[in-house]
């Protein structure tokens, strides 16, 4: 027994000291190399500082008035795009979701529908928008098509998972009465997944609005186009107004869709 007091220490997160040292060294080395490759142009940053100041001032005194027409137009366009795209995405994703549920779809259909979901989820909205703008021309229709396509992956994936997790007994019961495929879907699947499907769609509505604010950068319409123009003209006060409107609408949409989803549950 020793007289010296034994002091308790917290055990380290990684037990092996060699691993600990190697990890620290690796992370440190990466940081040095990565920061070194940033190619920071200090002169440009110093030259840009007045603009940063200007933007902060603009945030404090946003200008809603002088480009009011364009702002209202852009917001309306974004909202209409959001609604139409979500409804279209919902209608398109229902068959895909049914096909992508392992418990009600045969294997070839399952694989095909899962492939659609994977493609739709892997590419960002803005990349799809570039392609669709090239195909459909500039304007909100390309935006609607983009958002609808992106919604398929989101809604169909979550809905398919929900169908796979549902209670199998009603399914069996309806089949036992001799119900056709359509009747099985209508009486056994639909009542079980509808509340959650509605919730998922509302959530996607929310996301679609946010995305509608950026796909305008590549020409697919909406408030993003207005915002991009404002930045291009260095009209920071108008840009600040648009940003505040986007934040407000996102908040309202999030709150409203949260309330509706809570009621649906």
């Amino acid at each position, binding site marked *: 027994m020793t007289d010296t007091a034994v002091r308790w220490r*917290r055990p380290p997160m990684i037990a092996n000291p060699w691993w600990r040292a190697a990890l620290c060294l690796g992370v440190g080395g*990466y*940081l040095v190399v*990565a*920061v070194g*490759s*940033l*190619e*920071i*142009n200090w002169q*440009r*940053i110093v*030259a*840009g*500082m007045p*603009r*940063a100041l200007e*933007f902060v001032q603009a945030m404090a005194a946003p200008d809603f008035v002088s480009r009011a027409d364009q702002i209202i137009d852009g917001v*309306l*366009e974004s*909202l*209409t*795009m959001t*609604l*139409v795209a979500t*409804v279209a995405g919902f209608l398109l994703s229902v068959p895909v979701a049914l096909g992508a549920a392992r418990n009600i779809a045969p294997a070839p259909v399952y694989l095909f529908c899962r492939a659609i979901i994977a493609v739709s989820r*892997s*590419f*960002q909205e*803005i*990349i799809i928008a*570039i*392609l669709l703008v*090239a*195909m*459909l*021309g500039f*304007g*909100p*229709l390309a935006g*609607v098509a983009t958002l609808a396509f992106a919604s398929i992956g989101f809604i169909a994936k979550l809905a398919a998972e929900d169908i796979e997790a549902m209670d199998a007994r009603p399914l069996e019961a309806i089949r036992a009465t001799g119900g056709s495929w359509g009747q099985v879907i209508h009486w056994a699947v639909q009542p079980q997944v509808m509340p959650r499907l509605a919730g998922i769609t509302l959530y996607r509505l929310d996301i679609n609005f*946010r*995305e509608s*604010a*950026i796909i305008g*950068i*590549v020409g697919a*319409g909406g408030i*993003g186009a207005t*915002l*991009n123009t404002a*930045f291009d003209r*260095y009209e920071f006060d108008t*840009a600040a107004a648009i*940003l505040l409107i*986007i*934040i407000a609408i*996102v*908040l309202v949409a999030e709150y409203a869709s949260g309330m509706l989803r809570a009621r649906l549950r």
Partner: protein
Amino acid sequence: MAVFTKDGEMTWRRRDRRAALQRWITTFAFVAVLMLCWQVIAERTLWDFVLDAPAQGADLLGRMIPPDIAYVQQLWRPLWDTFNMATLGTLIAIVLATPLAFLAARNTTPRFPLVRPIALLVIVASRSINSLIWALLLVLILGPGVLAGVIAIALRSIGFIGKLLYEAIEEIDTKSVEAITATGASPGQLRAYAVVPQIMPAFAGISVYRWDINIREATVLGLVGAGGLGLELMASVNTLAWGRVSTLFLLILATVLVSEWLSARLRAAVT
């Protein structure tokens, strides 16, 4: 449910008259609004272009196949930049979001008015604005380049990490907090020994998850001039080099899939 008597016979219907009417009106209003929205979009569309779309699409596909594979040689540097934007941006966001989350959580926020609302406001503002919009702004201020991308990623991620982290802090088990308080621990010790160990798994999971999303977002930030693969994409689209565009798509797809796989493995390991 409702039962009606008609000509002395009982018939069952799913809804009574009032519920049916209510439902009909709601549906009608919704369809009317939808049609109105569609009309706005239809008015702003050049239908000649749309009618031409199948031909355009086929043409585009013809130009995109085969992908320009040799072009990959020029893409290693942009790929490295993309990876750095996501990783450094996530690291900066973690450093800034952690104290913010402690200020925003109901059970750890200091007893000082206005601190919590301000922390929440910062989180909301950061979360509502997409990193592409942040990048648009930062490219004007800092000039085009990877730095603007790093900061854009960081600004967007602060809100995301902050929100999920403060929710995790609010959900901790109060028993160990009480136990540590009973030993006479200072607020700092309380945080270090009662709160932090409980949120550590959530913290690691959230950070890795956000890193994965950031890789995805960093691939397109270059579209507005913030460096990385997006910059090459914009250049290729503008010069109509569709073979290069499809190469970039394949590379972006591969990057996203690898980061998703990695993040899923890491998250499975920590939780």
